[in-house]
């Protein structure tokens, strides 16, 4: 490895050593309690897929370059040199971890493997070894933040074409736009994903609730977070923050995208507006009686997959269950569920990167979990999870469909 690159990588490593990270790297007792926590290990029992091993890859570098023990007696802690081969290992380590943080739930010290993997991802970026598709998508998002009036006009035209599809789900209120854009002083700025599936149901639900809302020009997904680039993560989120401030909205509601929600809700610090997931908004409308659902309009047994970034890492856990309690009499929980739920296997950018073979093999435990619940519909509130679960039920020939929670709510709307 070139000395300049070596130096740069260590500088980046050092930049991530805040107090929490130092404690994470200093503390592991290698008790092995986390071994079975990882869905990848549970599906493919190889040591390299354990949380402790992943963390240890980074910890060995930490010992070698940032600890007295590693400098004086490197073999004692299995300290490792930063070499090109090591960078290969770091890649395999970082991109076999979905950042679901299930291991953190079980670790007696609460060590956050996803946080440790943020060092791994940062090193890969500095070495030019990150999945290029993720960096490219992140750059595209940032570029869209500098969009010209023409691109905004094109977006407005495209949104206008969704009108009829929204009206199938809910009628038009007199004098109101079906999908409003640039609405000053709106109560809610709704941030969708690219694709009408993320806009149409949400529009129907908010219109049914009589909400004063506005659709964001930007898509919620944050590829900066997937690739592990803190600057790009902030820049992508900042576009939405600026728009929300410009429109003076009271609340920014993030569509069904777990990572986008977590970034905006928990990683951007104090903001001049409230941040919610759209699942929380639906639950609130139901509690306030602003929308009503036709019970059992959707036939069949329904289960719910807790997206990791929305559930255990985001705090939206009981809201979807409340929504289902108002929608159906045939709801079944996956076992385990809530904080203990198995990751779908598609997080951490894996769905965007592709890696289908790995994603399918590493999520066998998820397929087993779904099969055991025997649902007709697997519902979820995260785009990544939806894509992965759709692939998964196909791959493992499970007789169930995968649907977005918001789509099911929109279908069940009752006048």
């Amino acid at each position, binding site marked *: 490895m070139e000395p300049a690159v070596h130096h740069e990588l260590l500088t980046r490593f050092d930049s991530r*050593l*805040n*107090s*929490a*990270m*130092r*404690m*994470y790297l*200093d*503390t*592991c*007792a*290698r*008790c*092995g*309690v986390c*071994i*079975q926590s990882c869905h990848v290990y549970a599906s493919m029992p190889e*040591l390299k897929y*354990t949380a*402790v*091993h992943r963390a*240890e890859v980074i910890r060995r570098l930490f010992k070698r370059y940032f*600890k*007295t*023990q590693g400098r004086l007696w490197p*073999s*004692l*802690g*299995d300290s490792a040199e930063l070499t090109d081969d090591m960078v290969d290992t770091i890649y395999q380590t970082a991109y076999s971890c979905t950042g679901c*943080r299930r291991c*953190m*739930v*079980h*670790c*007696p*010290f*609460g*060590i*956050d493997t996803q*946080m440790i993997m943020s060092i791994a991802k940062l090193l890969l970026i500095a070495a030019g070894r990150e999945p290029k598709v993720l960096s490219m998508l992140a750059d595209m998002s940032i570029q869209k933040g500098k969009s010209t009036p023409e691109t905004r006009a094109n977006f407005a035209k495209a949104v206008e074409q969704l009108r009829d599809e929204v009206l199938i789900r809910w009628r038009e209120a007199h004098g109101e736009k079906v999908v409003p854009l640039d609405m000053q002083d709106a109560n809610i700025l709704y941030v969708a994903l690219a694709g009408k599936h993320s806009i149409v149901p949400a529009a129907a639900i908010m219109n049914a609730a009589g909400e004063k809302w506005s659709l964001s020009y930007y898509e919620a997904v944050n590829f900066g977070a997937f690739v592990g680039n803190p600057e790009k993560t902030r820049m992508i989120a900042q576009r939405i923050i600026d728009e929300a401030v410009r429109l003076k909205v009271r609340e920014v509601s993030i569509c069904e995208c777990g990572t986008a929600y977590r970034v905006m*809700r*928990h*990683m*951007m*610090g*104090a*903001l001049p507006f409230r941040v919610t997931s759209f699942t929380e908004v639906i639950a609130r409308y139901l509690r306030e009686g602003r929308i009503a659902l036709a019970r059992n309009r959707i036939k069949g047994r329904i289960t719910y997959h807790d997206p990791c970034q929305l*559930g*255990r*890492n*985001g*705090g939206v*856990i*009981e809201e979807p269950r409340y929504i289902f309690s108002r929608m159906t009499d045939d709801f079944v929980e996956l076992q385990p569920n*809530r*904080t203990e739920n198995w990751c779908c296997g598609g997080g951490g950018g894996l769905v965007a990167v592709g890696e289908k073979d790995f994603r399918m093999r590493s999520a066998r435990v998820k397929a087993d979990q779904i099969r055991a619940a025997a649902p007709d519909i697997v519902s979820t509130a995260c785009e990544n999870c939806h894509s992965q679960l759709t692939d998964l039920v196909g791959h493992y020939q499970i007789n169930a469909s995968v649907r977005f929670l918001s789509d099911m709510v929109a279908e069940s709307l009752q006048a």
Partner: protein
Amino acid sequence: MQDRIYYFAMVPMVYAALAVLLFGIIGRTIRTVLAPRQQTTLQIFPAPRHPWLRALADTFLLPTVRTIRPVLWVFTMLFHGALVLLVIGHLELIGEIRALQIIPHQVFLGGGLVGLVLTVALFLFLFTRFKTPYREISVPEDYFLLLLLLLTVLSGSHMSWAKYLSPAGFDIAVPTYREYLSGLLALKPAVPMGIEASPHYVLVALHVFFANCFLMFLPFSKIMHTFFALPLNLLRRGGLHGARSTP
């Protein structure tokens, strides 16, 4: 020559070990505290109503270990409980602590049981390290620490066990230890005749030597979890200011 080596372990090395321990722990702690603060939450949800209570329970009761590895949990709890008793026992060897004598007891509670529990637990921890998959996740430091602790505990417990089990007894009495340890504390170090003349002097010196090695290694090892376990659990439960989720 032999006496010189023993004296080195019993006096200068003790001071050196305490200095390394103290400055090591302070240095590591300062470095961690002065590092930039985590600005965003690292919480796991649902957020507990009382984050501090939950973090204390996580730290001292290890609920997830109990669920996932119950045998390890039993021995880990016994081990840490015995360690606390051991620390109390050694403090009482420096001088009488009246507050602890509310319940009258002999110095070194348990009649050798504490050492036995520690020994059994340490052997279990060590043997587990030879078993897949724990063998593969272990690093030399794990074995080194366990061996160092085992040697310290075995050499120390031997003195205790001999006293209780053999009619010949172990001939170094508590007042003699107090003379030695309080002398060290008062910076008037000396190895009392009661220890120096004892046929078991070699065991005492070995025990002190291994303990010194352990104390010197502690600040540079994973044993720092003693100090970091609670703050880390607070991070997980959202109990640390600055790392909480915004309302």
